[in-house]
């Protein structure tokens, strides 16, 4: 016969053991996925990856044009999305703490943050690709900017709200106009938080695939011109992985390895170096 106390303790033990197993369950997948990417990717890595173009079916080659396209699209996204995101975040934090408009925008921004990226890609398709009549590299950049924007808005908002009021008041009491207070004092004290947001957003968009399918698409050949369809690493990985050719599979794994290393490296560095706080 077990007593009530013992029963409660047994229940407690079961729950805690189950919790530990759940954590192990989560970690197993992380290790498994990383291990697969590392072993298959490392086996497929070669210097040609960075010196040659994407090959036709069945032959060897590299991913140079895809790397270039991805870098260009991420750059376009950062150049468009960061200033708008910082300004909108500034509005939320500085001018709209109590206003209904700011609450609504904050709410909708949070939804945009988790909205399916494939739908955002379709939006850019309707907005850009359909009117100009063909896929284009810069449309891919726009789609990525749309995914980066809400991340920057939110982190800027959070970072600015952490800046103590007395800093602003000190600036205002010296007779500085509001915009100088924000540019020279508030941004400077919140710069780490804002930079964290931008870098985490870059990490997020560099693996995005779905929105690029309808915007930048792909291009087997080298092009500098963002007005034409452009190769990019995620879409190349998608097409090559779905193909029946072994040499394409190998290239897809190599690309997956590079993207994963870049994304995880960036997220870990940001977490360790810039801010120990986590971001969702």
């Amino acid at each position, binding site marked *: 016969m077990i007593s009530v106390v013992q029963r*409660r*303790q047994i229940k407690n033990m079961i*729950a*805690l053991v*189950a*919790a*530990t197993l*759940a*954590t192990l369950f*989560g*970690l197993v*997948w*992380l290790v498994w*996925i990383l291990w*697969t990417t590392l072993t298959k990717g490392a086996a497929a890595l070669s210097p040609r990856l960075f010196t040659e173009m994407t090959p036709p079916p069945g032959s060897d080659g590299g991913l140079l044009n895809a790397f270039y396209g991805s870098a260009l699209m991420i750059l376009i996204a950062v150049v468009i999305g960061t200033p*708008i*995101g910082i300004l*909108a975040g*500034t*509005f939320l934090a500085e*001018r*709209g703490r109590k206003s209904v408009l700011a609450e609504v*925008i904050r*709410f*909708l921004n949070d*939804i*945009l943050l988790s*909205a*399916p990226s*494939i*739908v955002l890609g*379709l*939006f850019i398709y309707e*907005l850009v690709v359909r009117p100009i009549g063909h896929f284009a590299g810069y449309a891919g950049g726009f789609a990525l900017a749309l995914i980066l*924007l809400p991340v920057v*808005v939110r982190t800027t908002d959070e970072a600015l709200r952490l800046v103590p009021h007395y800093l602003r008041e000190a600036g205002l009491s*010296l007779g500085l106009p*509001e*915009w*100088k207070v*924000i540019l020279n004092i508030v*941004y400077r004290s919140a710069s780490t938080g804002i930079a964290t947001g931008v870098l985490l957003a870059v990490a*997020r968009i560099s*693996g995005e*695939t*779905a929105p690029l399918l309808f915007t930048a*698409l792909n291009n087997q050949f080298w092009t500098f011109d963002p007005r034409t369809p452009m190769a990019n690493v*995620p879409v190349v*990985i*998608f097409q090559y*992985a779905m193909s029946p050719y072994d040499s394409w*599979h190998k290239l897809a*794994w190599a690309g*997956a390895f590079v*993207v*994963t290393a870049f*994304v*995880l490296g960036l997220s870990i560095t940001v977490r360790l170096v810039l801010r120990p706080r*986590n971001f*969702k």
Partner: protein
Amino acid sequence: MARVANSPESASASPKGESAFADVVGDRIFRFLTTGAAWLVLILLLGVALSMAWGGRLAFQTFGWHFITSDVWDAVNHQFGALVPIYGTLVSSALAMLIAVPVSFGIALFLAEVSPPWLSGPIGIAIELLAAIPSIIYGMWGLFVFAPFMADIVEPWLNDHLGNLAIIGPLFNGPPIGIGMLTAGIILGIMIIPFISSIMRDVFQAVPKELRESAFALGATPWEVTWRVVLPHTRSAVMGATFLGLGRALGETMAVTFVLGNAHDFSTSLLMPGNSIAAAIANEFTEADSPIYLSSLIALGFLLFVVTFIVLAIARLMLMRLERESE
């Protein structure tokens, strides 16, 4: 962003009238820019909804309610009904929630009650890294590693042990090919674990110390403290985290596209290939050769957007309630 040329000293040293005027203009411009950028976020979201509705209008007009209730997806005869992708999205997301919610709760419980403090940080970060891995990597891993694993080991076992049961049997009866609803649901579940568990962990940590400690002082075990004190206190945020995970699962594209099999046939078995809204769009968009085909795919995007919008709005409202309480 332009750096300001005048330092505060030079501004106050210049003739008073001019600098005051410049300050006012500067403030106006800055206000205009920040307000405009904020409105842009609002307009973008509206724009997404409107452009999806506009792009899908041909399909909605042509098929009406049949677009949602019909399971015929025939590109050759221009007949499009979205029942199979809708069903696939709902079932794969439901499977994902079945896996992710208990596991995430377990992880939050582990981090709060079991793990020594020095270990909580690294484990928390490791779990969050699962969220940082691009979804296309999940898809590739799913196709080349996990699907064969399912086909060789898990699915034959399910066939043998669950396939003959009375009610749930048909769910687990089917060819063990590894590609299908069950595989997609499991991968989705893994992907949303970090989103749910990191919020659960944060809200568990935000529970007032007095509450936890008084429960411990009454002799409650860690499990009882979590189940009877922490969980009731954080109920709405935990629900919010769950809905946030659901919103992610519904809209996830690349991971499921690889392992779902892009089949437009209706099947009760979880082992059979299926489709989801997002996977159908990703797979077929570049092949859509007629206006009605394209419009149907965009109409699918509209449905997906509306559903995720509602789910995510519920999530945010529930999470906001806790924020207000803690303020």
